């Protein structure tokens, strides 16, 4: 916009208003997060009288106890396994389908594509009871795959759409040249399409990973053994056990959202682009 000069004028009341407004929103966003982080460093007694401020006495023990417990690492491990499985399944299956839709013309292709995009219309929750029965009948209840397979299936629609759009933009001359030189479609997919598509694969992977890492409903329905629980289930149980020992719960929350926040700070551009682009293009 053309108002750079106005912004620099320090005493403009509209600028002041804007600064105050932004500051208020920033405080509203930050206070709950900081209170959670610092709350984990307080004793329960201090938390009650001083929930906002910095800890007067830093209780490193709260965090240390969790970090040295097998439980915390097991939850993260389970989440990592389930999310990785989901991402791997989604990327492999969706990129193969997207490649077919992008490069091969066959009878019914647009019909099949619309069939897949039906998945965008409704959430997994609508069919979660029959899904439970199905997973049970497949004897996948209480396994990592029992969660990862439905999650991958529900992320297919969006993934295929995003990947297909990108694959179609790969210069067609490349495919022609490769075919003339005797390269097969499958080799082209493996050695040309996939390497060229790293950005979109990363985007789709990120969306799928974040969704799976944070998911609660499907693991809640499909898993019965504590040892297999991903962290969102584990933390709900932890909260149930330590119902009002908020200092421990806050430390636990901080440690479980830490991986997400670190990932976000490291790859923020990618994540923002992925999550908004994914939403827009879907």
């Amino acid at each position, binding site marked *: 916009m053309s108002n750079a000069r106005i912004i620099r004028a320090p005493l403009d009341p509209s600028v002041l208003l804007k600064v105050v407004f932004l500051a208020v929103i920033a405080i509203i966003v930050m206070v709950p997060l900081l*209170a959670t982080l610092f709350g984990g460093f307080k004793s329960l007694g201090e938390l009650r009288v001083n929930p906002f401020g910095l800890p007067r006495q830093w209780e490193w023990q709260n965090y240390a106890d969790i970090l040295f417990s097998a439980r915390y690492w097991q939850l993260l491990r389970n989440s990592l396994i389930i999310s990785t499985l989901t991402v791997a399944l989604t990327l492999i299956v969706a990129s193969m389908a997207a490649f077919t839709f992008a490069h091969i013309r066959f009878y019914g292709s647009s019909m099949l594509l619309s069939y897949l995009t039906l998945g965008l219309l409704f959430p997994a929750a609508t069919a979660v009871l*029959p899904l439970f*029965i199905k997973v049970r009948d497949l004897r996948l209840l209480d396994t990592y795959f029992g969660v990862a397979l439905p999650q991958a299936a529900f992320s297919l629609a969006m993934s295929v759409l995003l990947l297909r759009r990108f694959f179609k933009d790969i210069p067609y001359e490349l495919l022609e040249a490769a075919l003339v030189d005797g390269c097969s479609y499958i080799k082209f997919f493996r050695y040309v399409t996939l390497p060229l598509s790293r950005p979109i694969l990363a985007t789709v992977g990120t969306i799928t990973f974040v969704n799976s890492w944070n998911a609660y409903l499907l693991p809640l329905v499909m898993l019965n053994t504590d040892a297999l629980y991903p962290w969102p289930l584990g933390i709900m149980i932890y909260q149930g056990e330590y119902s009002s020992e908020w200092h421990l719960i806050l430390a636990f929350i901080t440690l479980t959202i830490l991986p997400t926040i670190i990932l976000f700070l490291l790859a923020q551009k990618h994540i923002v682009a992925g999550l908004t682009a994914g939403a827009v293009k879907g």
Partner: protein
Amino acid sequence: MARRTASVSAIGVAGEMVPQVTVRGPSWDGRFTVLILFLPPALLLFTLFVVLPIGEAAWYSAFNWNGFGRPTNWIGLDNYRFVLETRAFWLALRNNGLIIAVSLAIQLPLALTLALMLAERFRGAVALRMLFFMPYILAEIATGLIFSFVYDGDYGLVASIWRTFGAEPPHLLASTDTAMLAVLIVIVWKYFGFHMMLFIAALQSLDKSLIEAARIDGATRSQALRHVVIPLLYPTIRLSVFFAIVGSLQLFDLVMPLTRGGPADSSNTMVSFLYNNGISRMRVGYGSAIGVILFAICVTFAFTYKRWFMRDE
């Protein structure tokens, strides 16, 4: 695509570019292999875990069934009648409506205002964008737990503020009057940043010359905003509304740590109602009927909305 197929086969046969005369080369070369290898995994996975369960939900919803053995106790449409006669169902539907109303009345204007401020370049703009987006990437479960601390009547932040004014702290999540309000606040806190990012992305791809032209023609800053910028953002606004409504229809994870839909069903959403009444009690028929109703609402909404508001996209 037809043209491409033609030129491939032309090159394969004649070795040079031929105008589009021969459509469909005689050989399926490797394409058939790709078709039978690459497509079935996706179709199988999707059919098995997405499409069939929806169909089965419709079938199971005609039975009184607890999930063991096979469904045998056919009761027709009774489950739907039971759902529609449950007060909690209508409460849940009302709550979903409230979420949509708050998204439109508060969250959207807030997100748009912030986007207009932060799309400009100044020091700290990018940092603020990231900060405001942060709640969106947090897991809903974690967000819900954080706010159940914020609202806690004994230890929470709200209680502490109340006490400094010498008042008895309220238990916001434990009262039927305030529980849903508390949930709504968390929803705005968590999701406004996502909508803001949608608007920022749209603002940055706007054609600046249109705004400059309006300014040169004598439009004030606010006139340019109202008559040029906002109309140019209509497609994004429609998209943002779409996400707010879809998000409301599937909201569940956030509600569980806060209230579990209670007290007395006052803060249930459709999905938490489905969970509390169908899944957690393994009433497969009844739960499936709720699922089918929710499915019908989602599909009807998606089609109507796309037809009425997003024709051009």
